[in-house]
């Protein structure tokens, strides 16, 4: 297991694959000659649009890049904390509720006492629902971030 190549290198967040058999490098063979092209400086500067610059800023840990990442981390953490607050109130409140208001646990729904129904059945779809909304919202946060980084300058 290649644990030692986990060094975080900027710009190398994803290793191309697990270490497998060495990929054949095109060593030995002469590089295919590229057709010559005329490079106009104005074109280069135009191509270097804002998206590229932002990505470079991210990778090179400039002030702007760091602020962007901080914003994303904060948004994702706020989302996770908000949803865990929902779970904490909805599920974590139950033992307390049953303890201070014993009459609540005497309620019978469809022949089943309420605590059994809430804990044995309802809690599972509730947890899945919270998880589902988290995945949706977290992916939206990431999409917003990607759009921000890749949006061409207008």
């Amino acid at each position, binding site marked *: *297991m*290649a*644990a030692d190549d*986990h060094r*975080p*290198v*900027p710009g190398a*967040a994803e*290793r191309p*694959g*697990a*270490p*497998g*058999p060495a990929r054949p490098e095109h060593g030995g063979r002469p590089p295919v000659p590229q057709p010559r092209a005329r490079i106009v400086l104005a074109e280069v500067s135009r191509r270097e649009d804002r998206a590229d610059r932002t*990505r470079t800023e*991210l*990778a090179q*840990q400039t002030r702007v*890049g*760091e602020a962007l*990442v901080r914003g*994303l*981390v904060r948004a*994702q*953490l706020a989302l*996770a904390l908000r*949803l*865990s607050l929902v*779970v904490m109130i909805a*599920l974590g409140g139950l*033992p*307390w509720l*049953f*303890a*201070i208001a*014993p009459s609540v*646990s*005497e309620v019978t729904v469809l022949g089943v*006492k309420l*605590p*059994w129904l809430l*804990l*044995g*059945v309802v*809690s*599972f*779809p509730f*947890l*899945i629902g919270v*998880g*589902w909304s*988290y*995945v949706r919202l*977290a*992916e939206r946060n*990431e*999409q917003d*971030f*990607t759009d921000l*980084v890749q949006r061409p300058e207008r």
Partner: protein
Amino acid sequence: MGNALVIPAIVAVTLLTVGIGFYGLRLARTTSDFLVASRVVSPTWNAAAIGGEYLSAASFLGIAGLILKYGVDVLWYPVGFAAGYLALLLFVAAPLRRSGAFTLPDFCELRLGSRRLRILATAFVIFIGWLYLVPQLQGAGLTLSTVTGSAYPVGAVLVAVVVTANVALGGMRAITFVQAFQYWLKLTALAVPAVFLALQWQADARPAVTPPDGPIFRTATAVVVEHPATLTFPDGEVREVRAGETLSFAPGDPVPEVSGVATDASDWLLPSTAGDDDRGLFATYSLILATFLGTMGLPHVLVRFYTNPNGAAARRTTLVVLALVGVFYLLPTIYGVLGRIYTPQLLVTGQTDAVVVLLPEAALGSGTTGRLLAALVAAGAFAAFLSTSSGLLTSVAGVISTDVLGRGSVRGFRLATVIAGAVPAVLALNVSGLDVSQVVGLAFAVAASSFCPLLVLGIWWRGLTDLGAAAGVLVGGGAAVAAVLVTVVGPPLTGWPAVLFAQPAAWTVPLAFTVTVLVSIASRRRVPADIGATMLRLHAPDALRL
């Protein structure tokens, strides 16, 4: 018990497990195939495999047994076991996968760059893994002796040998297929008999689960006493029974109350209330905390995330796991509740962990249907022991082979597997009398107090330092380990100390978080210089491929 179908069913499950393992062995060629399945496992397979690995003896047998014994209060076990995946999803799944860490020690080194912290984490991974393996092997021994009358060590050694050989020869790629198969087997093995049991309950004119006079025996039952106990009969008679005594009950006889078991209907049916006993509430919240936050720290759960191709896939896989596990946890409650009607003798013997295995024949009679379903349930129970032990063994062996033996080779991994499998097998043979669910609960508490703060703060807080993480793991995890040792080998306790040691999470988890944060702030200058790059790597969307 004399059910001739049980042994063939157990043999079939074992052979299928080994068979799929060897089929996978032919596919596993390189070291990376062997260890991380070359990350070609699809999310659905991966989710079923995580579910299969996660649903252990505690889930398959223990929860139903606890519900039979203690009633509504222990429904927090299944809820917490499922909710643990929600906490994992919210705080850990995607960033951990993007970090590229394969094990918890990897994550420590990657995030904080400290070799010493890595060693500390390795020690905890091995401790939690073994703590979790022992009850699995014990459950296997108890189940096999319950259904076939074999000696206790047979089941424990059988599972230990099969699992060690399978992991050593097939590695994780094979295990992925095995685990996914085990999930569906376990679900079927509980769901199909549950349908028959519910129909039988209807056909029996829906006998009350909590008759006003307490549970009664439906059939003539003989109970052999194994440990001395005090029985209280409903007419007020108190009787001391000695080991070896046989008690006979006629149909319609009330079930006597054994010291420490909730035979009383309202105790069983209703949650514990405030007032004279705050310890119950404390224990409930402690259990909630341990199970919610402990799942992310279990070594065999984290290894699986590496087989996802990227962070978004890890997130989706976790959601599917949450759904699969949630569906499964609807079932043990049915067994625990119907056990009050059909197997009340377990309340007297105290072997409530056997309720899932015994219920089909007790309710449906020993006709073909009853025996087939009993065999199916026994097969499912064995699937539970095999799959969880395989997962734990793979991760413990992985850690031993890279961090203790210091070799990444296939041969090193095989050697590590044998070491990792032998220790819990010896422990399981020598330490008997541990309660399956309680030990599993303690493993969750240790994981929640050691790795949960490390992971959550490591992923979300830039200020974490290696000193802070080490102090948190040592103090929080150490306190939880001490509580485990006191509970398992210490003197019997009563009152508050008993609760504080048996359910330690409510004080050890906050302690671990506090110590980690305070020491990190005090050692602020040790924050890694490349923290910005690490955070970018953990949180940047996969689409950017930065």
